[in-house]
C-alpha cells in the first residue's frame, strides 16, 4: 500500500525516510544522550524543529490547492490559526485556577474584562476530544462555506486570491476585538499542561515533536493518495483547462470545494500542533503576510511536488531563524529577494532544480 502510493515519488520517499530517521533519532539524542555530550539535542531545538514540521504540513496543504488545483490561496494562514485557536482554547481551560486571578472557570482575560460566565462557544473545550473535533470542524466549515460561495460564483484567479486574503484579514480584525472572547490582541497564552502533562517538560515537548512529524507524514500520504487517484487527475485537469473539464462532464465546483476543505482541515491540524509548542496563539497568526509567506515557501521548494513544499518550508524557516538572529532588519528583504530570484531563475523551485540536474547528468551519460 505505502509502496504503491510512493512508487513514482522519489522525492517523497527520501523526504519520508529522513523524517522517520529524525523522529526516531531526536528523542534519543535529547532524552538518552546526556547534556554536555556534543551529540545532545537541547530541548529548545526539539521545539524549534517541531514548529518547522507543522509549517511543513501547512505548506503541503497549500501545495495541494495551489500546485495541483491551481487555486492560489493567500489565506491559508486563517485555517492554521483557527486550528491553533481551537487547541489554545483547550489549553486555556486546562489552566484552571492556576491563572493570575485564580478563577477556576474563567481564563484570566475574561476575569479582566469583568465577564461573569464562560461564553457559550467556550463550552466543551475543557474536553480534549471536543477540542480535537473543533480543530477539524471549524476550518472545514469555513473552507466549505467560503469555497461553496466563491467557486459556485465561478470566481477564479487573482480575484479569488484577493478574496482569500480578505478572509484572513477580516478574521484578523475580528480576533483583535476583546468582545470576540478570544483574548483580543494578546491572544491565548500562559498554557500550563496538556492531558495532564506539563508543557515545559522535556517528555511532553518530545511527544509534541513526534506527533508533528507523524502528522506531517500522514498529511503527506493523504495528499499523495488524493493526487494519485483519478480525483487527482481531475483536479490537475481543472488547473490546466477548467472549462474543458466542465464540458467533459465534471462538476468543477464540487471538486474545488472538496479539495479546498480537505486542505483546510490539514492546515487546522498543523495549527493545533503548532500552538502547544510555541506556547501562544494570537491574532497575528491571521496576518495576511503569514499566508503570503506560506506561498513563498511552496514557490521556493517547488510547486506541485508536495515534497518541495516540505523542503521549502523547512529551509526558509531555518534561514529565517538564522538571519533574524544575525541581522533582524534584513530578513524581509532577503525573503523578498529570494522569492524574486527563485521566480526568475528557478520557476520550478528547488525540487525542479534537483530534477534538472538529474536529467542533465543522465543526458550527459547517454551522450558519453
Amino acid at each position, binding site marked *: 500500500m505505502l509502496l504503491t502510493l510512493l512508487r513514482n515519488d522519489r522525492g517523497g520517499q527520501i523526504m519520508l525516510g529522513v523524517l522517520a530517521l529524525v523522529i526516531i533519532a531526536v528523542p534519543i539524542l535529547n532524552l538518552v544522550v546526556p547534556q554536555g555530550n556534543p551529540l545532545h539535542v537541547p530541548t529548545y531545538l526539539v521545539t524549534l524543529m517541531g514548529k518547522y514540521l507543522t509549517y511543513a504540513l501547512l505548506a503541503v496543504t497549500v501545495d495541494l490547492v495551489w500546485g495541483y488545483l491551481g487555486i492560489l490561496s493567500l489565506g491559508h494562514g486563517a485555517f492554521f490559526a483557527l486550528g491553533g485557536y481551537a487547541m489554545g482554547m483547550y489549553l486555556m481551560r486546562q489552566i484552571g485556577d492556576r491563572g493570575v486571578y485564580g478563577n477556576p472557570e474563567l481564563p484570566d482575560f475574561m476575569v479582566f474584562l469583568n465577564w461573569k460566565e464562560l461564553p457559550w462557544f467556550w463550552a466543551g473545550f475543557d474536553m480534549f476530544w471536543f477540542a480535537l473535533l473543533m480543530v477539524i470542524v471549524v476550518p472545514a466549515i469555513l473552507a466549505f462555506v467560503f469555497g461553496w460561495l466563491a467557486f459556485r460564483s465561478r470566481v477564479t484567479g487573482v480575484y479569488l486570491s484577493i478574496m482569500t486574503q480578505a478572509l484572513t484579514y477580516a478574521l484578523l480584525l475580528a480576533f483583535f476585538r476583546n468582545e470576540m472572547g478570544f483574548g483580543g490582541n494578546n491572544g491565548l497564552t500562559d498554557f500550563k499542561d496538556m492531558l495532564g502533562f506539563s508543557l515545559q517538560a522535556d517528555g511532553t515537548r518530545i511527544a509534541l515533536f513526534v506527533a508533528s512529524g507523524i502528522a506531517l507524514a500522514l498529511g503527506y500520504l493523504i495528499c499523495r493518495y488524493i493526487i494519485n*487517484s*483519478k*480525483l487527482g487527475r*481531475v483536479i490537475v*485537469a481543472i488547473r490546466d483547462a477548467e472549462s*474543458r473539464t*466542465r464540458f467533459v*462532464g*465534471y462538476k468543477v465546483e464540487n*471538486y474545488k470545494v472538496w479539495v479546498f476543505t480537505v486542505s483546510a482541515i490539514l492546515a487546522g491540524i498543523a495549527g493545533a500542533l503548532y500552538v502547544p509548542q510555541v506556547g501562544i496563539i494570537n491574532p497575528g497568526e491571521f496576518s495576511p503576510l503569514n499566508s503570503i509567506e506560506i506561498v513563498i515557501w511552496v514557490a521556493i521548494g517547488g510547486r506541485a511536488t508536495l515534497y518541495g513544499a516540505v523542503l521549502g518550508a523547512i529551509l526558509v524557516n531555518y534561514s529565517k531563524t538564522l538571519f533574524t538572529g544575525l541581522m533582524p532588519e534584513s530578513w524581509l528583504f532577503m525573503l523578498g529577494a529570494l522569492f524574486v530570484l527563485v521566480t526568475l531563475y528557478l520557476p520550478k523551485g528547488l525540487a525542479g532544480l534537483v530534477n534538472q540536474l538529474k536529467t542533465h547528468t543522465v543526458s550527459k551519460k547517454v551522450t558519453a
Partner: protein
Amino acid sequence: MSEGEGARFITKQTLDTSHKAILYLEDLNVSFDGFKAINNLTLYIDTGELRCIIGPNGAGKTTMMDIITGKTKPDSGQAWFGQTLDLLKMTEPEIANAGIGRKFQKPTVFESHTVAENLELAMHGNKSVWYSLRAKLNGEQKYLIDETLRTIGLSDHYHRPAGALSHGQKQWLEIGMLLVQKPHLLLVDEPVAGMTHQEMDKTAELLVSLAGERSVVVVEHDMEFVRSIADKVTVLHQGSVLAEGSMDEVQNDPRVIEVYLGE
C-alpha cells in the same frame, strides 16, 4: 411520490429520439450589448446525420454551439435534446453527461496528462468527487481506451504527455475524448484548422466513420473539406439560417453566393 422526487425523475429522463430528430433549436435569440449574435435561429439535426455548418465570421456558429452546450443562455427560444431534455434548464456537466460532446476550435486537451489519461478523464461514467477518489479503470474501460486510440491512430502515444503531441494529433485526441464520452451528438468546431492535407484526409475519414451511430455537427470554414464529408450543409448568416441542402444546392443559391461564396 413527493414533488422533489418527481423533479429529479424528470431531469434523469433519458434521451428520446423517437421522432427522428435529436436536436431541436427553435426561434433562438441572443444578443451581446445590442449585437444580435443569434437571430430567430431554427435548426433541426436528425439522428445519425453528419451536418456541416458554414458561414462567414460572426455568423453565430460558435454562439450556437455555446447555447447547445449550456455555456450561453439565449434571451428567448427553445433548445431540446431529443423529445424530453430541455437544454436551457441544464448545466454544462449535465448536458455533457446527457450525451452531447463538444470539440473546441482550438484543440484543448489536458496537456500535462498522458494521452491515455486524457481518455480516462473524458470517459463516460460516474463523475462525482467521492467516486473519483476510489475509481480504478476496469478491463472494459481499458479496452475502450485501446480501441479508441486505434480509431484515432494514437496507439503508439499511450504514455506520452498530451502537450507533446503535434497540432493534428491533439485534434484527433480531442475527437477521441469525445468518443469515450459515448455521446449521441458530437459538436465539432473547425476540426481541420491548421492541418496538413494528409491530416485533413484522415480527419475527414474519421468524422464520416463516426456519423451513423451518432449525429455529428461540424462547423468548418474550409469549403474543400466540407465538400469532402457533407451530406447536408446549413449556411448561417447574421445569426439565422440562410440556406440548407446539399453542397451543390447551397453553392448555387444566389443568396449564399452573395454573402459568402461570392466574395
